[in-house]
């Protein structure tokens, strides 16, 4: 069932892919026998039979994911999106402390352990990457503003 659903989805995508290859992709002029549209056409031509085969004969494996697992996966994806969203505004340190602690907590770490983990990775990770390895990580607008404020104060 899951196989068929996924294959149907792939079929739609591949048909759209093929449609674009046959109608939209065109070189204004070309000297070569194969233009930019030929290769996508070949690929679509090879993929569609494969997908049809899966639709015709799906593997019998049931998609065994419990509701609870779905929930956990969904929660993880939401947390990841939140982490991505806050990465630049909050900066690496704060967003990592939050993300690390919350994920560790939701996955069943003890409270103090989770907090220590988040703090440790956030702060040491930043120091390690930024100072030692010279990698470019977001400082964070809020942090920057705060630093600016204190610096302004000192002057």
């Amino acid at each position, binding site marked *: 069932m899951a196989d068929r659903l996924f294959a149907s989805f792939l079929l739609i995508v591949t048909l759209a892919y093929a449609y674009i290859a046959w109608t939209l992709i*065109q070189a204004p002029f070309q000297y070569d026998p194969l233009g*930019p549209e030929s290769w996508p056409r070949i690929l679509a031509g090879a993929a569609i039979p494969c997908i049809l085969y899966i639709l015709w004969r799906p593997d019998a494996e049931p998609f065994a994911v419990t509701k609870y697992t779905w929930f*956990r996966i969904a929660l993880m994806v939401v947390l990841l*999106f939140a982490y991505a969203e806050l990465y630049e505004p909050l900066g690496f340190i704060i967003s990592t402390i939050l993300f690390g602690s919350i994920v560790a907590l939701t996955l069943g770490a003890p409270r103090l*352990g989770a907090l220590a983990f988040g703090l440790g990775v956030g702060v040491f990770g930043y120091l390690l990457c930024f100072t030692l390895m010279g990698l470019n990580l977001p400082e964070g607008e809020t942090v920057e503003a705060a630093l600016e404020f204190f610096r302004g104060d000192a002057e």
Partner: protein
Amino acid sequence: MDAILSGLSTGFSVALDPFNLLLVMVGCFLGTLIGALPGLGPINGVAILLPIAYGLNFPPESALILLAGIYYGAEYGGRISSILLNVPGDASAVMTTLDGHPMALRGEAGKALSTSAVASFIGGTIAVVLMTLFGPLLASVAVGFSPANYVALMVFAFASLASLVGKSTVKTLLGALIGLMLATIGIDANTGVPRYTFGIPDLLAGIDFLIVVVGLFGMAELLHLVEQQVKGTLKSLPVDKSFVQAADIIKLRWTILRSSLIGFIIGVLPGTGASVASAVAYGTEKRLAGPEEAKSFGTGNIRGLAAPEAANNAAAGGAMVPMLTLGIPGSGTTAILLGALLMFNVQPGPLLFTQKPEIAWGLVASMYIGNVALLVINLPLVGLFARLLTIPHHYLTPLIAILAFIGIYTIVGNPHDLFLITALGVFGWFLRKLEFSLAPVILGFVLGSLFENNLRRALSISGGDWAILTEDWTSLVLYILAFAVVFAPIWLSRRARRAAAA
């Protein structure tokens, strides 16, 4: 022979540079660590650490030496969790659990670990020696390859991939096609026509290789860990004082030698890596053992432990051969390494050994050193790695995400890509759930432009006549091999079934 010796000396002068030497050590250590963590195999480890290694702005040969060390170390470290926890790090370590874990249960964990370390060392070394001998030879043959030959070679690569990897041939093929289709996104280099960009400027240059790799492997692996999350921590067996004796190794010499050769040959075959090699070596050894001894396989037979370990490390080395000499990776992990080479503007292929000897030979020399380093690191420090096994998953999982984010952000510096890797992670998780293997996808993605360009070039040469593809003997032989590699297993299994029925 002279060329090989002078090449090796160039290589060693690169690899013995103190900084590169340090990187080999660091890479091997990190790799062993990643390999030892249950559930994290070499491919995921290399995928997660690749962007970080790239972001460090090392010269290409140094970064590649580091990555190769990680790759190598991870193949090495996989046995630790297999033996002590009965949890293989990835498919290639599955065979190691069969006899390794029973040995540890019997109180011979130390012996099992040290035996497998020595077997891995011998397998790895044999592979590197063979690579030194045959790599340049293969390269010199491949220099004469025409675009049409390359097309045939690709067909062969995808055929052996489809027939030997994964459960379903059709799914493997479809996976490779998905990869190839992803690779067509972006501006067509020959004509400048945008394809599948939908007017989005970020897509004009195509989807970044790093994003695909980190998304499909790192992030999908993370979701897999969340799904599989085991309650409580895994129990690791203690490492005891038992140790491998020289007499054991001498007794195992033919096993190790055979398995190393099998591993190397399977590793060289495009598309098939360590997992197939270790399974074949184990099966061969079991068949050769005779009916009496075969019964003890799976209950802690030391031959059953040494064979897959020698084979998977030999395959890890063997998979580097087509990657370096033909530009066609021998496995999923080497596909990632190939992508890494391309990111450094190094085009692997037959000319690599002559045009960029410091990279090709430096990598080979670093593998000699890495092998020795791994043996030295692994024998005394195995207790330390064993303790790391018990890192609970609730810390490991967020750590993977954090490392992936650091890697992608430092390279691309664009927060949109953080969303993209997460989305690709979800896609990869679905593919995995539906028993698509992900290695073909990445292989297709990496080989996409090479495949297309050679096909177009071949047809330009012939003026549009498709007959050029089957015109010379090299191509024909490759097509016949491709045909054989797909249909021989089907035919053999039919015959076996008929024999069983009769």
